[in-house]
C-alpha cells in the first residue's frame, strides 16, 4: 500500500512536500470538487475502504484523511 501522502499528492497533482496536515479542500485550486471525488475514489481503491457521502464530506483535510485511513479496522 502506498503512504497516504503519496496518494493525496498523486491525485491532487501536487508536490508531496505540499501535503501537510492542515491542507484542506478548496484551499488550493488543485483540491476542487473534481480533485476531491478523484481522491476519494483513489482512497477506496488503495486501502479497500468504502467512503459514503457522510465520510466524503468529513474527509476534507489531510489530517482527517490520515486519521480515517490509519484507524484500526
Amino acid at each position, binding site marked *: 500500500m502506498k503512504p497516504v501522502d503519496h496518494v493525496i499528492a498523486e491525485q491532487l497533482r501536487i508536490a508531496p512536500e505540499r501535503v501537510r496536515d492542515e491542507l484542506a479542500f478548496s484551499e488550493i485550486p488543485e483540491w476542487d470538487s473534481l480533485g476531491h*471525488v478523484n481522491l476519494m475514489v483513489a482512497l477506496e481503491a488503495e486501502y479497500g475502504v468504502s467512503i459514503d457521502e457522510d465520510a*466524503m464530506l468529513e474527509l476534507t483535510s489531510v489530517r482527517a484523511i490520515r486519521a480515517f485511513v490509519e484507524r484500526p479496522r
Partner: protein
Amino acid sequence: MTSAPVPAAAIDREDGRSLRSGVVHHARIAPDAPALHVGDRMLSYGDLDARARTWAAAIVDALGRPAERVGVLGHRTEVAYVGALAALYAGAAFVPLNPTFPVERTRHMLAAADLDAVIVDDACLAQLAEILGEAPRPAVIVLPASDAGPALAGARRVITRGELAHQAALAALPPLAADDIAYLLFTSGSTGTPKGVPVSHGNAMAFLDVVAERYAIRPADRFSQTFDQTFDLSVFDLFLPWSAGASVYALRPIDLLAPARFVARHELTVWFSVPSVPALMRKKGFLRPDLMPSLRWSLFCGEPLPRETAEQWQAAAPSSVVENLYGPTELTIACFAYRWSAASGAACHNGVVPIGRPFPGLTAAVIGDDDALASPGEPGELWVSGPQTVPGYWRNPATTSARFVIRPDLAHATKRFYRTGDRVQRTASGDYVYLGRVDNQVKVLGFRVELGDVEAALRKAPGVVEAVAVAWPVEPGGAAQGLVAFLTGAGVDPEVVLTIARAQLPDYMVPRELRIVGELPLNSNGKIDRRALLDSLAQPPAAR
C-alpha cells in the same frame, strides 16, 4: 402551488426596468421576504436593498457622481453578492473579480475594465494591494466587512465598515437606461487574453422576461446558486429569483460535493448547474432515484449534457422538468433550451442531449462552410440575432466587427448576428444539436474531421469516462498529420480502445496516440482546456 405565476420579470413603478428593479420592487412590497441565504445567514429583500443603497451612496458620494463600472472582489460571500447589486444601485455595471483566479489575470481584468470603484470582501484584503499595484484607478475602495484596509498606493479613498455604518442611504437611485451596461464579464479568449463582454440592461431584461415566463417563477421558489459570479450563468441564479421575489441559496464549494443533500435540506425548487456537478455524483454512485423530490426545475448549461446524466438526474428529481440550456456570454446567459422527456433518448446525438430551440424573439441561422445558409440537417456555425445579442466586445472594435455581423440576406437589414463559433445541426424535429466548436473541426491529411465524432467513438470503450481528441502534429500551415486523444477512466486498455475506435472510424480519424490521464485540464470557466492539452504535446518529452 396556488399562487399565480408571475408572467415576466418584475418592474418597479419608480425605478423602472433594469436588472436591479426586481430587488427595488420587492424590497418595497415585501421587505421581510427572504432574498438570499449564505451559510447560516439570511438577508431579506429589505436587508439587501438597505445594504446596496448604503454602499452605493458611499461610492456616489466619494466620486461626486454616479459610477460607471464597479468591481466586486469576493467569492460566494455576502459581500460578493450584495456588492454586485450595490454597483447597480450606484448606476454602474458590476464587474465580478474572482480571488481564486491568478493575480495576473485579475490585474488584467481590473485594468481593462477601467473601474471607478471596487468592493472588496475581507477574505481578499491580502490580495488587494497586489492586484491594485501602482495603477491610479480605481480611486475608491469599499471594504464593507473590514475596519482597516491594507496600505494602498496612490490617493485612494478607502471606505471601511465603520464609515458605512454612518453613511446615509441613497434615497434616489441614479437612473438606468436599456442601453446602459449591467455587467461586464471577461471570457477566456482563444489567444489567452480575456475578452470583455459588456451586457446591457436591455439584453439582461430580454433574457429575464423569457425565463421568468418559461419557468413561471413565483415568490415561493427557492433557487440554487452554484455558478461563480465571473460566469454569466450566475446572473440567472441571482437576478431571476430576485426579479420575482423568490429566494436564493448559495452553495459553498463543499456543498457542491453533495448537492442532493443541499437541495433536500433547503427544499429547493429550482436547480441550475453545469452538468459536471451531477457527473461527479455519478462517479461516486451518489445520484440515486428520488433524492430531490422538492425540485420543479432541473436546469443544466455551460457544457454538453450527457444523456445518462439527464436520465439519472430525472430519476433523482422525479417531480422536476429537466432542461438543457445553451448560450454564450455574448448572447446573454442562455438563448436555447431543450426539454427532456422519456422519449428524448432517441433525440440524443453522440450521447449528448440536444440544445433544443431558440428562445422566442431570437433569430437563429446555421451557416455552412460556403458562408451560405446550410440546408436543413446540414451542420454549420450557429449565428444568432435578437434582443439578447450584446453590443460587442469591450473596447475591441476589431474583434467586435469580426464576430458581430449584419447579413441582410439572412434577416432584416438591421439585425446584427453574433457568430457563436459553435457547430450545430438542425434535426428534422426542429431541435438543434451541438456538435462542438467550429475550431474543433480540423483537417487531418486533407480530410475534414469533427473531433466530437472521434471523442464519441472513444467514449464507447470500456472504462473510458472522458475523451478529448486534438489534431497533432500540426504542420506550420495548419495541416494536421493525425490525432492524439486524452482519456480518463479506471482500467482503460489502450489496445481495446483502439480496436473499438477502428471498428467505428475511418483510419484518418483513429488517434495515432492515446494518453490515459488522471484528469483533464480545465480553463477558468470549468471547460476542458484544449490549448493546455496541445501545449503538453508541444513540450519536449523530457519536460512532460
